[in-house]
């Protein structure tokens, strides 16, 4: 390994070790991810009950009950990739407290460092969460009425998950770097979280939205965080559309990579090294 790779590998390894320090918190965080989906399924159960019951073939905006459950299960997977909890608030906190100095003094790139730490955290998470995920998907296999997708669709799904992670990471980094201009960003972050919850497809399948709202979510990057990977898996996006959507998602990633770099560069210039 050359020295740069070795440095990145060490950052990754230490990030992994750090994640495993608080075992209880880690285990709880891993398992708690399954909780919200259960409440959502019960909610939709009640909704479908009012239009003839979950066993009926009743559809709500094109979705049968089974489709809805399958959608939520897949969204859970997408979110496991694209969510980077505490990244933006952590960056803003480091700016305010002056901890960020360490990245200015040491020969290491902050964004690269944070990214490797996050990949390490994700790796630790997937390693542990794969088993419960597999059990849940096995138990819920009946909801995937169209069966297991083609290998090519699965490959596109995998690619959309990776792009989702990159987009989530650079989007939150960009928001966190706003901390260079406004030291307190928690309200801004709250607005982002709220928008993201609705417009990423975390709350409900985005193709349920009527015009003109569907156009709005279509031009925003948030849908690639939750809705898009699930839609790929469910075969809702195929052929040329799939290629086009993946390219747009990649373009958004590039956009936020560049934006976060420019903001970091400008932010550091105006930084006044708070806190002693």
């Amino acid at each position, binding site marked *: 390994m050359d020295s740069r790779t070795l440095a990145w590998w060490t950052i990754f390894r230490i990030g992994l*070790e750090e994640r495993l320090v*608080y075992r209880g918190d880690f285990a709880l965080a891993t398992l708690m991810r399954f909780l919200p989906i259960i409440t959502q399924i019960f909610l939709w159960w009640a909704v479908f009950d009012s239009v003839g019951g979950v066993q009926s073939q009743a559809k709500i905006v094109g979705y049968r009950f089974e489709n809805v459950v399958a959608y939520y299960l897949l969204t859970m997977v997408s979110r496991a990739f694209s969510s980077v909890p505490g990244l933006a608030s952590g960056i803003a906190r480091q700016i305010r407290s002056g901890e960020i*100095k360490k990245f200015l*003094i040491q020969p290491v790139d902050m964004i690269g460092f944070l990214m490797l730490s996050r990949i390490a955290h994700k790796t630790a998470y997937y390693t542990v969460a794969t088993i419960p995920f597999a059990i849940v998907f096995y138990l819920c296999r009946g909801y995937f009425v169209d069966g297991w997708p083609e290998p090519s669709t699965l490959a596109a799904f995998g690619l959309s998950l990776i792009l989702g992670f990159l987009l989530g990471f650079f989007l939150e980094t960009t928001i966190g770097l706003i901390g260079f201009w406004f030291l307190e960003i928690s309200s801004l972050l709250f607005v982002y979280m709220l928008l993201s919850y609705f417009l990423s497809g975390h709350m409900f399948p985005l193709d349920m939205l009527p015009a003109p709202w569907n156009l709005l979510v279509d031009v925003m990057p948030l849908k690639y965080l939750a809705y898009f990977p699930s839609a790929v898996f469910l075969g809702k996006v195929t052929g040329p559309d799939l290629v086009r959507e993946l390219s747009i998602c990649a373009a958004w990633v590039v956009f936020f990579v560049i934006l976060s770099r420019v903001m970091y560069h400008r932010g550091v210039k105006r*930084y*006044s*090294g708070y806190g002693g």
Partner: protein
Amino acid sequence: MAIIELRALSKSYRVYQKAEGLRASIRGLFRREYREVQAVRGIDLDVEQGEFVAFLGPNGAGKTTTLKLLSGVINPTAGEALVMGFVPWKRENAYRRRFALVMGQKNQLWWDLPAQESFRLHQQIYRIEPAAYQATLDELTALLDVGTLLRQPVRELSLGERMKMELIAALLHSPDVLFLDEPTIGLDVVAQHNIQQFLKFYQQRRRITILLTSHYMKDVGALCQRVVVIAQGQIRYDGSLSGIIDSFSGHKIVTLLLDQQQASNGFERFGQVLEVQPPKVKLRIERSAVPRTLAAILDQHAIVDVAVEDPPLEEVIARLFSQVDERYQQRAAP
């Protein structure tokens, strides 16, 4: 050629000013008043390779700002600086591999992991050869006597132990220039002494250049041949520690031991009486008047013993610092 060169280096901040109270907070939503604080005002300084220099000054004098400028954490408003030929705020990796900054109040180690993990990370990001890394680490841990603590999470170390680990982390890549910002702040006397002894030994052995800020005169007295006094963002003094007394104190402290029969009152006419503890009287006398006044005292009183001393360094420096005026802190238009 000097290893550190500062030319007319200046840094000013815009600081938000808020009056007390809710009303002022609401007004601050619409209209904000800012004040321009000139933290560093045109500093010129040359430091030669191998020097151990102390920055002294009251809080807010510009010491830490100067160190931040030199380590490239902040950009200056005006002026130039070169450290080993590098402009610090360009933050080139070649420069960042050759200096270190240790801040007594900031933690650079991974809080939840043993210090050795942070050291390993430093080895990689500073690209230290494995053999050199091991040798330096062994040397530093032995000198600071922390060999048994390397595997303990940093959060479980005492403040003194953590400071030692911070120093090791900073020195692993054998920097040529070291900036220390109050490295002994909050430490007990023993820990302070240990750190001082270590810094002294290390600096003499490696002949590295160190810039230190500290509030503890003991640190400065023990370590630095050269002292730079900064106040109001400007250099007020540059020279030896003892020279400060000559430059800034126009007084001597005279202690008289009186004869048993001698009354201990009536000494006010010779100078400022600092302390009366019969048979001892302590006076502050203007330096130029010492011989004349002493002759008069000996002539008029029965004196057993006399001691003439310089005032304590702390006192001289405290006086020097208290001469701070606000003239230069201009109010900027909102």
